[in-house]
């Protein structure tokens, strides 16, 4: 309940800031200035856009399948937002304490596909249907490497509960943590904490896992370079071509919500969740000082924001992939590598830790 009360307004606020940030980053990368008119440095631009969007007419195309069309944005947003239920926000605040939280998250987020297909089919529009088909093909394909890369983390941390997983990556853990996860080195870093106890440091092979997770996550969120379902230049926006006003806004919200969810998940799985990156160094107990209720939230959101920035940076760097390239990447490269990494993770867990 706490997470619900926190995440819903947070998500809305994030979308406002995120859109602004994205436009600014895009502009700076392209030697432009971005929004500058509304408010100082254009800060209020997104709010102005939002107000405009809310005033727009809610159009229901004549030939559309009314029920599907109207329900689709809600389904998409609900599916994405349900994922937030299991995220551990900070020390002791974890929303639904589901033992199989990670599994639930992956499952519920996949429902997203259903909403997209509903939107594409319900619009009764070629382009929307094209977009929806692509989206379904893409999301289902990328679910495989995504799941495999996450499975590696699950193997290392031996749990599906995200809160427990987070605790195991910091100074609050009950288990011993060895440097790079190698027991034979005999360096116990559990009490040092900081970045040394993060999953990516506990078992360095997870870096590869993280890259795969990140790429697959981008594809799941339909972000460039994997935004084929939307691809404005070919499909005029894909599955949300026919939407306007608030319903279109929900799509936008869902997209940014998905981005944020992937970023949170990446931070929790690989970078210690709400744990501080600062280690205890001798008497300088930085980790102890920067661990707490508010610090936890700060670190988690901070890490998520860094990942969001990387997503935007990637988006404005790479061009969109072709459909065959997209499938190539998923099935020929990411999936096999993810399987290999998974295997190494298992071996690491058995022999090293």
């Amino acid at each position: 309940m706490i997470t619900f009360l926190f995440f819903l307004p947070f998500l809305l606020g994030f979308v406002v800031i995120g859109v602004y940030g994205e436009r600014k980053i895009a502009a700076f990368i392209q030697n432009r200035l971005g929004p500058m008119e509304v408010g100082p440095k254009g800060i209020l631009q997104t709010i102005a856009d939002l107000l405009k969007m809310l005033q727009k007419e809610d159009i229901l195309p004549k030939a559309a399948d009314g029920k599907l069309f109207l329900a689709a944005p809600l389904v998409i947003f609900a599916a994405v937002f349900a994922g937030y239920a299991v995220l551990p926000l900070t020390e002791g605040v974890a929303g639904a304490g589901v033992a199989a939280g990670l599994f639930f998250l992956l499952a519920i987020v996949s429902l997203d596909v259903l909403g997209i297909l509903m939107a594409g089919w319900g619009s009764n529009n070629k382009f929307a249907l094209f977009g929806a088909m692509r989206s379904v093909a893409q999301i289902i394909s990328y679910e495989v490497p995504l799941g495999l890369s996450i499975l590696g983390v699950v193997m290392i941390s031996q749990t599906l509960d995200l809160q427990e997983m987070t605790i195991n990556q910091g100074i609050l853990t009950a288990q011993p943590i060895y440097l790079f996860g190698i027991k034979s080195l005999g360096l116990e870093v559990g009490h040092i904490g900081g970045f040394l106890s993060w999953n990516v440091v506990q078992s360095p092979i997870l870096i590869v896992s993280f890259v795969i997770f990140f790429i697959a996550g981008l594809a799941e969120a339909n972000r460039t370079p994997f935004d084929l379902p939307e691809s404005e230049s070919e499909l005029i926006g894909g599955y949300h071509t026919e939407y306007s006003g608030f319903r279109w806004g929900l799509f936008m919200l869902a997209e940014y919500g998905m981005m944020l969810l992937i970023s949170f998940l990446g931070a929790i799985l690989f970078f210690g969740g709400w744990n501080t990156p600062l280690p205890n160094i001798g008497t300088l107990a930085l980790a102890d000082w920067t661990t707490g209720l508010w610090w936890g939230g700060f670190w988690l959101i901070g890490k998520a924001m860094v990942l969001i920035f990387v997503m935007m940076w990637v988006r404005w760097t790479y061009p969109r992939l072709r459909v065959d390239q997209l499938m190539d990447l998923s099935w020929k490269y990411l999936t096999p590598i993810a399987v290999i990494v998974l295997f190494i993770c298992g071996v690491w867990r058995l022999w090293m830790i």
Partner: protein
Amino acid sequence: MRSVEALDDMSTYARNIGQAIKTLSEGLKLTFKYLLQARKSREPIGVEDPNYFKKEEGTVTLQYPYEAIPVPDTGRYRLHNEIDDCIVCDKCAKVCPVDCIDIEPIKSAEEIGKTSDGTPKRLYAAKFDIDMAKCCFCGLCTTVCPTECLTMTKVYDFSEYDVRDHNYVFAEMTPLEILTKQKAYEEHQAKKEAEKAKTSSVSKPVTRPEAKVTETTAPSEATPVKPKFRPKPMTKKPTVSDEQQKTGEGAEKPVKAEETESTSPAKPKPKFRPKPTIKQASTSDEKKESNEIPKPKPVFKPKPMIKRKPKDE
């Protein structure tokens, strides 16, 4: 054999991955560099500035209404006419390739003043409009202007909500002034005619050209849209006819006969007709022996006529 192929495949596979990582990281580095450079920004400096071509980093956007690259003082954009210096010679209107200058002169009996460079002014500008929406900013009008009153200024931002606002009016006369000046000139003309009629009632050939002039001007006075062309024939014809009076009186006669014939049936046409006939006359029989000077003038005159015909027909 098969193992070699498989090995080959594996190496291309690995190479692909390596290449992808390399190129992708290169791309990210490049965009990050630009992201950092965005802290700098281009300043609105003019082309005279030695640094104009040196600012290669940072954002290039200029927020136009707030900042603008200064244009040189010699910038050639919007036209300006210093109407006090304009002698209403109509040259600019003639040379303009898009016909966007619209001049309506009123003749005056005497010199009405001098321009700042001492050229006497003999015409009032009842109308001097330049339609900037049509203007192609070729600058031809400014080069032909004899008094250099028509110039291009450095003002380049003069967008309007209504295209009609692009018509710039430079004439400063009020309708009342226009009317009085017109009347004054007509009166003057009438007086002059009367005088002439008095003095030259003895010799026939002299009155005839006079009659011709009144005939041609009559329709154009009724329709004051065309007076643009009036000044030319008016000012020049007397010179022609004067010279002709002195030199070839006999040669004039057949011309007159032709004219009266042609003018009587169709009223609007006589304006054009007389000239070709003059030209014919002058080229055919008259000017062989004596006058070479007036000849180019009648030849020059028909030109605007040729231009005009397609408009009327």
